[in-house]
Structure formats: structure tokens, C-alpha cells
């Protein structure tokens, strides 16, 4: 049986790992390859790196971390942030990443998903969606790291993304990000019911029970978190043992 995946997420700026609370108040944590190795040795199933380096020029230098990570670890990893062209995909995959995630650029240019999927295969194209609940009771897609609201509905955008060729969806709840109150289970459930590719929950983990709930009540394939891992509040080994005891298929 396929195991549910535990995925530490590392935000990278200028080649260093940082973590934002509600995308602000950024605190420096450590070097990508060092943390990557630490998590890989601790039993992480996969890693996600989001490069939040501001300018394109600086990002070129920042992305050198991808090569260093590929040398350090032997589990799959995904790189996202600022990817807007096929050349960006080529560059990152050549440096040794297994998957590339797109967010704002795919909203602006959905054909990017199709092109990349045809060229590299759906399995390495991850559509990352930043979603926030709106007054109508559904979820709007936000871009630019949560700063700009779009007219897209998050569930519809996930379905469209898969049609275009995305092989996996990462759902990041802006409302829950950094709040440690648990994942947005309603949103996740709607998306896992609507698409037939793996769905990864992101934003809101504060306790081990939150991970269990995301699998149990929203049937997600993977669960992503950052600060609870970076600050040692939850140890991956303990979390996996806990989930396994709760009857979840987990790699130990």
C-alpha cells in the first residue's frame, strides 16, 4: 500500500531557509542542505523548498542551493518559487530536483502547466495553490505570496490545473498558515474529492493530531508543515510512529 507522505517545507531566501508566519515576520532557520539532510535522516518522505528570493537576478544565485541539496539527500524533493518559464523548469530539474511547483505564474499563464507537463511529465509538475476563504463561503486563489486576490475559485482552479497536466496539488490555506489550529479540512476535502491526483495539505499544523485529521477526514496523500518541524515542536519519527499506531499507512 502506498504510504501517506510527511513533507517538511523549507522556505528559502538568498540560499537560506526561513519561515514566515502569515507570510511575514521572517526568521532565519538554517541552510537548505543541512536541514534537508537532517529531515531526510529523520524519516521525511519528501522535501519541498520554496524560493522566496525577491528578484529574478538574486534567485539565480539562490537556486545554487538545489545542486547542494541534490548531493546531500536521497529522497525526492520539490522546488518552487518564482518559476515562470520552461527554462526555469529545465534549470531546476537539471540541478537535480525531482519536482517543480508553480503558483502565481500558472494563474497568469495556465498554458505553462500544459507545456511543462508535456515536456517533463505530469509527475514533476506540482500546482501550488494559496487559498483563502471568502465571504461567499468558498475559497479564492491568491497570488504573489498571498498578497493579491484573484477571481479564481480554489477548487475549480485545482480541477483545471489537473486537466492542464499538473500531477499533484499542494493546497496552502492562508487563513491557517502559521496559526497552528489545524489544516483547513473543508477545503482539502473538496479538493481531494474533485481531483484524481495526489493532494498535499499545507498550512496550519500545530499538533500531531492535525496530521491525523488531514488524512482521516480529508483523505490527503501528503501532509506538509514547516515551523513545527524547524523548531523541533514535533519530531518526524514521533509523528510517524503516532500515525502508524492510529492505523495510517506510513513508512517507518
Amino acid at each position: 500500500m502506498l504510504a501517506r507522505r510527511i513533507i517538511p517545507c523549507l522556505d528559502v531566501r538568498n540560499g537560506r531557509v526561513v519561515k514566515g508566519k502569515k507570510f511575514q515576520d521572517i526568521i532565519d532557520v538554517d541552510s537548505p542542505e543541512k536541514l534537508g539532510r537532517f529531515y531526510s535522516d529523520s524519516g521525511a518522505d519528501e522535501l519541498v523548498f520554496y524560493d522566496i528570493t525577491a528578484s529574478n537576478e538574486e534567485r539565480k544565485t539562490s537556486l545554487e542551493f538545489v545542486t547542494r541539496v541534490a548531493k546531500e539527500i536521497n529522497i525526492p524533493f520539490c522546488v518552487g518559487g518564482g518559476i515562470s518559464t520552461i527554462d526555469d523548469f529545465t534549470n531546476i530539474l537539471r540541478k537535480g530536483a525531482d519536482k517543480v511547483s508553480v503558483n502565481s505564474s500558472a494563474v497568469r499563464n495556465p498554458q505553462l502547466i500544459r507545456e511543462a507537463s508535456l515536456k517533463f511529465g505530469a509527475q514533476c509538475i506540482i500546482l501550488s495553490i494559496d487559498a483563502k476563504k471568502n465571504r461567499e463561503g468558498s475559497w479564492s486563489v491568491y497570488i504573489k505570496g498571498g498578497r493579491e486576490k484573484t477571481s479564481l475559485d480554489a477548487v475549480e482552479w485545482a480541477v483545471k490545473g489537473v486537466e492542464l497536466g499538473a500531477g499533484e496539488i499542494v493546497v496552502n490555506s492562508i487563513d491557517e498558515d502559521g496559526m497552528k489550529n489545524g489544516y483547513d479540512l473543508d477545503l482539502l476535502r473538496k479538493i481531494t474529492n474533485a481531483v484524481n491526483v495526489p493532494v498535499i495539505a499545507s498550512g496550519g499544523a500545530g499538533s500531531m493530531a492535525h496530521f491525523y485529521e488531514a488524512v482521516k477526514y480529508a483523505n490527503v496523500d501528503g501532509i506538509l508543515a514547516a515551523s513545527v518541524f524547524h523548531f523541533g515542536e514535533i519530531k518526524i519519527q514521533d509523528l510517524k510512529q503516532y500515525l502508524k499506531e492510529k492505523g495510517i499507512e506510513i513508512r517507518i
Partner: protein
Amino acid sequence: MHVIIDYGMGNLDSVQRAFTKVGMETKISNKAEDIKKAKSLILPGVGAFRDAIDSLEKTGLVPIINEEVKKGKYLIGICLGMQLLYEKSYEYGNYKGLGFIQGEIKFLDIKLKVPHMGWNNLKFKTADDPILKYIKEDDYVYFVHSYYASSGSNNKELIAYSDYEDLIPAIVRKENIYGIQFHPEKSAEVGLNILRAYKELIS
């Protein structure tokens, strides 16, 4: 020196690094003389079957690989490289493979999500095969694929498999030819332990 056959498909660094970690010195090459001199051959692969077999045939190396394998040289196909070992594939059409192993590569026509992507546990069919020496049944390995080797009930090459609605051949062997469907280079310590055992059995 072991040779990783380079036919222009994707990043071979991680595969090479994994072999280096278990003490197998490898050279990435597309030269006939390297393949002839090699202690053993490694056939990697990512992407679509059609592009891979096209590129491989264009290198002109196929007859040389055939010859070396017939002489008893070990060959290991990894991921798409394993699929290339079979007779034919139905990915985007109908393409002939290298034909070392009987069977066909078919789409995973199942209700579960495709690609079969993530960590799945191994079940042993031929538990005494030396490639399994350093791993246990139910150890997890990392898969990413949408097509699989289907050889019906006549699957005498099967060493280990995973369950994913259908039976997914994970490690196959025919004499001096091995195929691995998952990515040992992405399968943490278990992946390295498989390569470690492979290194021992071919030396």
C-alpha cells in the same frame, strides 16, 4: 569500472551518486568501447518509452549491449530503464523494446491515482534472490510511474512487487539481467541497501 549508459535522457547524477555511495565506481558514457570494457552496465531512464528507445537506438549501442549481455555481463535497468528491457510498450503507441525479458509495458488501468507516485512497500516473490539480502519484506521504496511491466501469470522473473490495486513488478531478474521499477537513488537507505547487495552479487 561500471558504465551508466548515457543516451541523452535526463539527469544521471543522482543515479551515479547512489552507486558511488555503495562503492561502485561508474562512468557515464555513450561510447561502444566503454560498454565493451565495462564490468557491468546500468541502464537508467526517465520520461516516455518512445523517446527513450528512439534515443537509445540512435546511439547505435543496442547491438553492443545485446552482445555483452549475451556474454553474461550484468545489466540493470532502472525505472524506465527496466521497462526498456521488455518486448514492447504501449505508451503513446506501440513500440518495440530491447526484448531481454518477455512481457509488455502497459498503462496502469486502475481506479487508484495514476501515476503511482510515492513510497510503497515491497513484497518478496523470490525471497532468496541475493539482491534482497540487505532489505526486509515490507521495506518502502519510492515509485513514480504510470506504466508497468505486465507479463501475465507467466512471471517467472519476478523477485519483488508492490500492491497498488494491481501487482506492480518492482524488481525482476532474468539470469544476468535485473530490472528495478522504483528509484533506488531516491529510496533513502533501503535503496542503497539494494544497490549494495547488487554490487556484491555481480562481483
